[in-house]
């Protein structure tokens, strides 16, 4: 009880500064993200919240988050062509995927853990529940990770994943894609998404892609071929930037020196 009384004496701006709470994250634009209930993606029907989401202003619990040091990852973690290889390189179109992790203020997010996973060149995942008849590649595991550098950059080498059919409609196919998981600096920024490939006609036929209503938002998830970054006689390159939530600036709120 005594501690509470003391804290209430310093509530107000000074207390906010003490707790590091200046500047919460921008509210998520729910119309840019997919809705929870998207009947064309059948699994979402029973897995979407029935009650409205509770609105919670950011607290320290959401404005902090785990940080993973560069020592977390090993030298082959960002090389899917080699990190599961037994007898030789993984089969498929060799590609490099690179980009930056930014926040909504267009500032780089350094030290962000980026995890990625994907099907092999035939569109087959290495997973016991996967039943697609395309062959497993003994030299391809399908997972990798990287931590962004001081400018927010990451990169990895892999093979281009294949498109594959999945049980939704009787003849639905996923476009080629790579799954991404991102940790920024705060748990409020936690994000999982997917990357698509420029020019793929399958993008516009996919019930999961179309959970996103705005074409510009789908374009934001579509990596662009970068001929300049291509490794001659080796690998094509795709650029894929990812944007995490940004924090509100706090001018006039509590810090005289600005930020």
């Amino acid at each position, binding site marked *: 009880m005594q501690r*509470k009384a003391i804290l*209430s004496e*310093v*509530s107000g701006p000074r*207390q*906010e500064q*003490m*707790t590091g*709470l200046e500047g919460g994250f921008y509210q998520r634009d729910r119309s*840019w*993200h*997919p*809705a*929870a209930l998207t009947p064309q*993606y059948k699994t*979402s029907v*029973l*897995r*979407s*919240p029935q009650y409205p989401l*509770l609105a*919670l*202003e950011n*607290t*320290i*619990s*959401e404005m*902090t988050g785990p940080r*993973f040091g560069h020592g*977390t*990852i*090993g030298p*082959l973690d960002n090389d899917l062509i080699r990190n*599961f290889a037994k007898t030789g390189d993984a089969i498929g179109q060799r590609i490099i995927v690179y980009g930056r992790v930014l926040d*909504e203020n267009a500032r780089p997010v350094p030290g962000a853990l980026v*995890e990625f*996973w994907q099907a092999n060149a035939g569109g087959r*995942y*290495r*997973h*016991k*529940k996967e039943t697609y008849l395309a062959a497993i590649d003994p030299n391809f*595991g399908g*997972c*990798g990770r990287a931590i962004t550098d001081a400018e927010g950059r990451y990169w990895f080498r892999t093979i281009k994943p294949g498109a594959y059919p999945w049980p939704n409609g009787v003849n639905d196919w996923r476009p080629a894609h790579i*799954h991404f*998981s991102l940790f920024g*600096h705060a*748990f409020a920024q*936690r994000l*999982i*998404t*997917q990357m698509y490939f420029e020019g793929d006609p399958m993008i516009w036929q996919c019930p999961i*892609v179309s959970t*996103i209503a705005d074409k510009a*938002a789908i374009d934001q*998830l579509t990596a662009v071929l970068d001929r300049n970054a291509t490794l001659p006689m080796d690998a094509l390159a795709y650029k894929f930037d*990812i*944007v995490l*939530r940004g924090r509100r600036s706090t001018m006039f709120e509590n810090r005289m020196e600005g930020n």
Partner: protein
Amino acid sequence: MVQTLTTLKESPSQTAGPYVHIGATPNWVEITGVWDEDLGLVLVGPETKGERIIVKGRVFDGSGNVIKDALIEIWQADADGLYNSPEEKRGKADPNFVGWGRQPTDGTTGEYRFETIKPGRVPYKDGRLMAPHITVWIVARGINIGLHTRLYFGDEEAANAECPVLARIEHKFRLPTLIAARSEENGMPTYTFDIRL
């Protein structure tokens, strides 16, 4: 034409899909040798301060069936209410407690399970203390954007009653869905937190 804002749009979410474990817990799905240990399996070591607890539960879909392919992450303060994060400006958290964990729901029973410690109280933005809580994040096939929720503790009735976040919830019938009941399992305090979509 007026000036334009220079802010970017957040990348839209997409479902984690049925094979999220390949990326998040590859060893658990028998993709071994890429890295030795999946991240987030162990939160507590012998040096960690605080009361050892187990947090477990299941995720149910809208028909009441258990979801067996979900991935659960938790994020919490240490025993003194400090987060092990560079964004924590109030002090230095217990260096022997990361505060972040990740577990799949079991492929047979659908249960998730964390061994952790009971977190201390953390202040709300106006300085009032929130009740002890754990942030919980749920992703799975069929979930288009990761779901954030909070676990509160059933044996913290006084703290729950004065928590400024719980107080803001309009429909009081939803409050019990955020509170985990305490029991004992092999001598360990165990909190059961089921999640219903």
